[in-house]
């Protein structure tokens, strides 16, 4: 397990020494800070709008970081052949993938915590109230990122980085819309569209399960069961994606 930890730590270090990460973090920060502007421009409860847009930005930039950094760091390791030295050492291929994954999760978590603290401090400044539920919403976003990072790793070992990034982005978009589509088409009589949507709905994780923004923004109660299921759902999908990634990577020749 030291090997996994070492690979995760190395991945984390590679990311925090890379300019690209700061670009994303910078954009995320700018977005969160400028929510104040939206709050002023829009009619309605200013604090709620700040929270809502803030959490949405956090989710969007976490997604960008998870997708882009996974793709970048996995494919860079394979393409620049630094992975040769790892595989010639007593390290299994799945350990390499898990190490990469955990490193990426650490990067996403660090970023998520940082931006959420900034948002919470801003909300505190506007309302005089510390809202711990913001961290709950961020934790649910982290669950979503666990799934997306695993898919990113799967696509990184399946295909080229650009295509892989697009495919992971597609999972993000479809994952947030497939449930609605499913609801809409379920009423239709049996048709090709309905069948297709059913397949997509069951293959692609329903990422709306991790969306507790409404509850957090409006101070509504959160159903513990929904949270429990979200955790199980995230772990299951991430595990499946990683196992598939391992199945592909295990038999792959590196060049």
């Amino acid at each position, binding site marked *: 397990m030291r090997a996994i930890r070492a690979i995760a730590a*190395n991945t984390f270090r590679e990311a925090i*020494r890379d300019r690209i990460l700061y670009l994303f973090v910078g954009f995320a920060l700018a977005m969160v800070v400028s929510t104040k502007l939206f709050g002023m421009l829009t009619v309605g409860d200013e604090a709620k709008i700040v929270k809502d847009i803030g959490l949405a930005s956090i989710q969007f930039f976490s997604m960008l970081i998870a997708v882009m950094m996974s793709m970048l760091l996995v494919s860079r390791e394979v393409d620049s052949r630094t992975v040769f030295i790892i595989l010639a*050492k007593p390290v299994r291929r799945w350990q390499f993938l898990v190490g990469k994954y955990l490193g990426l999760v650490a990067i996403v978590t660090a970023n998520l915590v940082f931006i959420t603290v900034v948002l919470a401090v801003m909300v505190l400044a506007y309302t005089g109230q510390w809202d711990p539920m913001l961290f709950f919403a961020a934790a649910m976003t982290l669950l979503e990122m666990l799934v997306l990072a695993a898919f990113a790793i799967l696509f990184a070992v399946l295909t080229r980085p650009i295509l892989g990034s697009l495919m992971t982005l597609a999972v993000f978009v479809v994952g947030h819309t497939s449930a609605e589509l499913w609801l809409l088409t379920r009423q239709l009589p049996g048709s090709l569209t309905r069948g297709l949507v059913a397949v997509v709905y069951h293959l692609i994780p329903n990422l709306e399960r991790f969306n507790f923004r409404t509850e957090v923004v409006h101070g509504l109660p959160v159903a513990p069961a929904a949270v429990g299921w979200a955790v199980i759902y995230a772990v299951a999908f991430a595990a499946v994606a990683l196992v598939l990634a391992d199945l592909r990577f295990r038999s792959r*020749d590196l060049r």
Partner: protein
Amino acid sequence: MSDIQLSVQGLWKTFHPGLFEADVEALKGLSFEVGRGEIFGFLGPNGAGKTTTIKAICEIIRPDAGTINVCGHPHTAPAAKRKLGFMSESPYVYRHLSGREYLRFCGELLGLPPAGMEARIAGVLDEVGMASRADRGLGTYSKGMQQRIGLAQALLGDPELLILDEPMSGLDPLGRRDVRDIILARAAAGATVFFSSHIIPDVEALCDRVAIVVDGRLRAIGTVDELLARDPVSFELTFTGAALDGLATPLEASHERSDATWVRVATPHRDALLAELGGRGARLLSLNPVRISLEDLLVEHSAEPTT
């Protein structure tokens, strides 16, 4: 050899580069063994399959058929990997790490005890002559410096079997001598060294045995002396008292010096030439066999048409 440290048996590998490209048969039933404590040279022309063999040994690629044993274990076993030190053809390093950080990372992967780690890293850095530059970023290293760090990484686990893919290429003369010294020192300390190389003098100076691989097949294997101890391919002779003109025997080369005539003749024609010269009343001054060099042998094998 009773104690085999590396055994490769019946290795086959075909690459399938892509939809519109022909398959490449890189290895065609390659087999050889390397005994404990040997320094073993792996020779062959470009594209012969040397790197492919080494990648198979290190589990970077999977052979289609064949078995590989490393230090008595199947090559995929962690026990085998712990006894193996591998240096790749070109140095592939992380640009975000310093030399020392890189070696620390490798030490973790090897599972070295944390207590002695720093001392061990300092030891190998010293061995490859990089101690003073260890804290610079690998991205700022020259190719030769990266190669030295690549070698340091291979030595870090105190391996029983060192596998080096062209360890001397890209190094300055001093660096080449350093690598030679390291190989000799590690072998003297009991390690087995297997390396591929195109630098014949290094191979001749270092290797107990060599294998020549061409087109994915083993062409020759043995000590350098064994491989070269064949009948001489030609003879050089010098004589006086006879002209070259009109000799019936075909000559490979000739030169009329002021004091004598020098010719080179292929072995099968030697006796005919001697008889002919004798008939002309020539006085033989010298007759020397020309032995093949390792380089000649390699060129000869590489040039042979293959089926």
